[in-house]
Structures are given as C-alpha cells and as structure tokens.
C-alpha cells in the first residue's frame, strides 16, 4: 500500500464513520429539536437576571448579554458533547462497536470520525443560540468571515469535548457510572471557565483552573467572532493552539482506550 492510498483510505474510513452517525440523526431529527430548549432557558432566565448585577459587564462596558451570548453558545455545545460517550457504551452493549474494531480502520480514524459527527450536533445548537441572541438584542455579527470562524470554533469545541466524553466512557464502562460522572463533570467545566463571568472576578485558585480549561479558550475565540464588537482577551492563535493541542491529545488517548471496550 502506498502512502497516498493509506491517506485516502484513512479519509474514507473517518468520513464513513461520521456519515453513518449523521444518517442516524437524519432518521431521528426529534433528538436535535429537544436539545434546543436548554440554551434557551439559560439565556432567558440567567441572562436577564444577571444583566442587573453590576460588575459583570465585559471589559468594554458592553451589556452583560453580549458577554453571555458566546458563553451560552459554548455551553450548549459542551452540554451536548459531554454526553456523547454514552453512545460508545450503548454501541458496546448492542454489539455494534466490535464491527468497528474488527475493521482495519486505524483506531484514531474511528475516534475522529465520531468526533466529526458530533460537530454537526454542535452546529445545530449554534443556529438556535443565534436566533435567541437576536431576539434578546445581542449584537451578533453576520459577516461571512465571522460566521465561518464561529462554525470552526464550535466544531473544534464539539469534537474536543465529545472525544473527552468518549475517553470517560472507556474508563467507566457502564451507563450508570457514565451518567453520574457526566453530571459531575459538566458543572466544573462550565463554571470554572470564562463562560458566564470574567475570570478576573474569580478567586485565585479558580482563575488557575479556568486558565487550564479548554472551554475558556473556546469562549474567548467565540467572543471575537460572534459579536459585532469583538471581545476576548487572548489572541486567536493562542485559542486555536490550545484547542487543537487538547483535541490531538484527547484523540490519542481515546484511540488507545477505544479498543479495550471490545473486550
């Protein structure tokens, strides 16, 4: 097998896995609709109350809702992606996983294909959050370049947290334990980040955790591109580098653990 055949094969395998997942979504679209409810509640309830709290506005003095919009976008993607691993456990229980594992596809192609499919779920969330944001008067940017960048960072975040979820699933192995852990993990990832309040308002120890949290970098990037008046405190390069490295590390770990689910 030549190198170019190997690369073409890798692409076919990875996209094949992603395509199968998307076909399932198409057969059952209700799942995506029900997921739209959560970001709506956050923006409406949390956003309108916190708007009144002084000190929460962004550095520029812009409204808190402008600050919150990108945070809720990242959060809605996180909340969907973080439970993606239940799918891996379900596939193991239903015998489907072994069909993947006996194939010659590199394990990383399997993991990346799954991650890729979860980005589409993330993108559907984006549509909902954008509509809500407009309704609430958040100053959303519709410049094509900005939209493309937002889609890219959402995809990156969804891929990253769904792969993290697969790693957790491979470690805990049962549905019950996974659901328990998923609940426990979501909150710290969300609250120990810059999603709903600026890091500078946090106590020192929480600031350190927040800076280690990939969600912080996703939100930071989204603040640059989702809003007409760009926010965010870091450079795009920093955000991008942190997210890509985190994804690569997680894919490598997941590719090691994934085959053990077959035993």
């Amino acid at each position, binding site marked *: 097998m030549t190198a170019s055949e190997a690369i073409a094969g890798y692409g076919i*395998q990875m996209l094949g896995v992603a395509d199968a997942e998307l076909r*399932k979504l198409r057969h*059952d679209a209700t799942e995506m609709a029900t997921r739209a409810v959560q970001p709506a509640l956050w923006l409406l309830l949390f956003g309108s109350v916190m708007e009144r709290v002084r000190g929460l506005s962004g550095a520029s003095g812009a409204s808190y809702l402008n600050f919150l919009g990108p945070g809720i976008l990242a959060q809605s993607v996180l909340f969907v992606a973080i439970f993606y691993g239940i799918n891996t456990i379900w596939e193991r229980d239903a*015998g*489907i996983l072994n069909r*993947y594992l*006996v*194939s*010659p596809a590199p394990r990383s192609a399997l993991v990346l294909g799954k991650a890729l499919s979860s980005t589409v779920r993330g993108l559907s969330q984006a549509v909902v959050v954008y509509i809500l944001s407009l309704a609430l008067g958040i100053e959303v940017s519709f410049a094509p370049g900005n939209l493309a960048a937002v889609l890219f960072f959402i995809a990156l975040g969804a891929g990253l947290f769904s792969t993290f979820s697969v790693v957790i699933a491979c470690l805990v192995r049962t549905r019950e334990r996974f659901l328990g852990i998923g609940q426990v993990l979501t909150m710290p990832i969300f609250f120990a980040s810059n999603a709903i309040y600026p890091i500078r308002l946090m106590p020192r120890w929480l600031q350190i955790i927040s800076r280690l949290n990939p969600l912080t970098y996703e939100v930071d990037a989204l603040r640059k591109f989702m809003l007409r008046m760009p926010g965010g405190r870091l450079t795009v390069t920093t955000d991008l580098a942190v997210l890509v490295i985190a994804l690569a590390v997680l894919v490598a770990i997941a590719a090691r653990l994934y*085959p053990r689910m077959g035993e």
Partner: protein
Amino acid sequence: MTAPDADRRVGGPAIATVALTRRFGDLTAVADVSLTVPYEEIFGLIGSNGAGKSTLIKMLTTLLPPSSGEARVCGFDVRREAAEVRRHIGYVQQLLSADGALTGYENLLLSARLYAIPRHQRAARIAEALEMTELTDAADRLVHHYSGGMIRRLEIAQSMIHHPQVLMMDEPTVGLDPMARRAVHDHVRKLRESLGMTIFITTHDMSEADELCDRIALMHHGRIDIIGTPAALKAEVGPRATLDDVFAHFIGVEIEPGGGYREARRARRSARERRQ
C-alpha cells in the same frame, strides 16, 4: 464475483495457533490451544456454553489479546500485525452487531467504507452482498424492523463485503428458526464455493456441525484435544454413532446448549428498540 486472489495468500495455513491461552483472573478460558486450519476449509468449533469458543474467536479476530501463545491468521500475527489480520478476515459475532438505527444499505455502506473499498467499487460490492444474502428488497428499511434471520444475513453481508480470506462466525444460527438457519448454512457454503473463503464457525448444534463442516474440534473447559472429520470421529465411537455420542464419548459429558440463545435474543431486542 471474484475469488479472493490466491496471490494475496501468504504461505502456510489460513489459521494457525500454538499454545494459545487466555486467562481472566484465575479462570483460564482458553488453555494451550494449538490448531491449524487450511485455506478453503469449513472448520467447526464445538463446545458447551462457557467452553471458551467466543474467547478463542475473539483472539483470532484481534478483539482480545492472548495471555500467552501465538496465533497467525493468513500468515499474520494477531498481536504484531493486527491491522493486516483485520484486512483479511470477516467476523460475524455471537451478539447481533448490525445497527438498528440505520437501513440495511447504510450498514453495508459503513462496512464498505471501514474496509476502505474505493468509491468506484462500492456500489457493486454492496449490490453483490445484498443479492447474495437476498436482502436487496429490504435494503432501504431500517434494521430495527428486520427479523432475526434478516439481521443475521445482513451481518453476513457486512462481513463479506471486502471479500475476506477467512470468515469467522460465532454461533451464527443461535436463536434462528429452522428456515433462517438453513439460509445461513446455504450462504456459508456459497461463500466458500464462489469466493473460496475459509470459514471458521463455532456452534453447540451437532447437526449443524455434521452437515456443514469439513472438520470439527471439540472444546471443553478451554481445551481442545479432539479434532477430525465428523465421519472419522463418529467411526471411532461406533457404527451408528451421532456427533452427540462423539461428544459424550470423548468429553465424558453431554453437550449442553446455554445462554447463547438468550444473549442473541437480548441483542436483537436492543437492535429493535433503538430510539423507538
């Protein structure tokens, strides 16, 4: 159909194991198994529930690493050359494995892509697999509407789509009615005849082993001490002996069917219930 080209075959037998062993804690599920299966043979592995059949077949398919010993499939080492082994085998596992949330066609498309079959061959291979397993008319239905026999046939279609040299089947007829069972037997014979496949099949059904297999091995408590053609083994026991007699004679206990059926049923239910 094209046969798996003979020049893809590395020298030596289709399957060869030496002192292959797998332990789970204190339990030795497969103990010191050495066997050789030549190309184009239908080889049956017979044993009661819990004998170690699935564990052995999982090691041959690279799903489970051996504790000790060696196994080569199509000349490739299951540990060091796992990807090559996977390229050359098909696997129909004991639990059902088709995805109920996809159609039959989509399941096959996924398989074709997992085996990196190039785009220009994919449609022909999928059509061939559907036709061979008589699922062409059901191809666009969601698999959770399929009967158990149809799901099994789909899985056979999925595991042959890349024309493997060796097809490993773990209790493929458990839980099927006699008609569906006969259909599976027909497909197995057809795969050997038209594609020259080697078939490694496990069962605890003696009539199935007798009808289908060129040679059989008797497995008990993880060990395999008796291997031969059904005729030769029966002749050793007596003039009118059945394979049940053979098993009782050599192993000292009757063969007993077991949980395999329940497991297959459970898996089939979950395939149907998916997202309903």
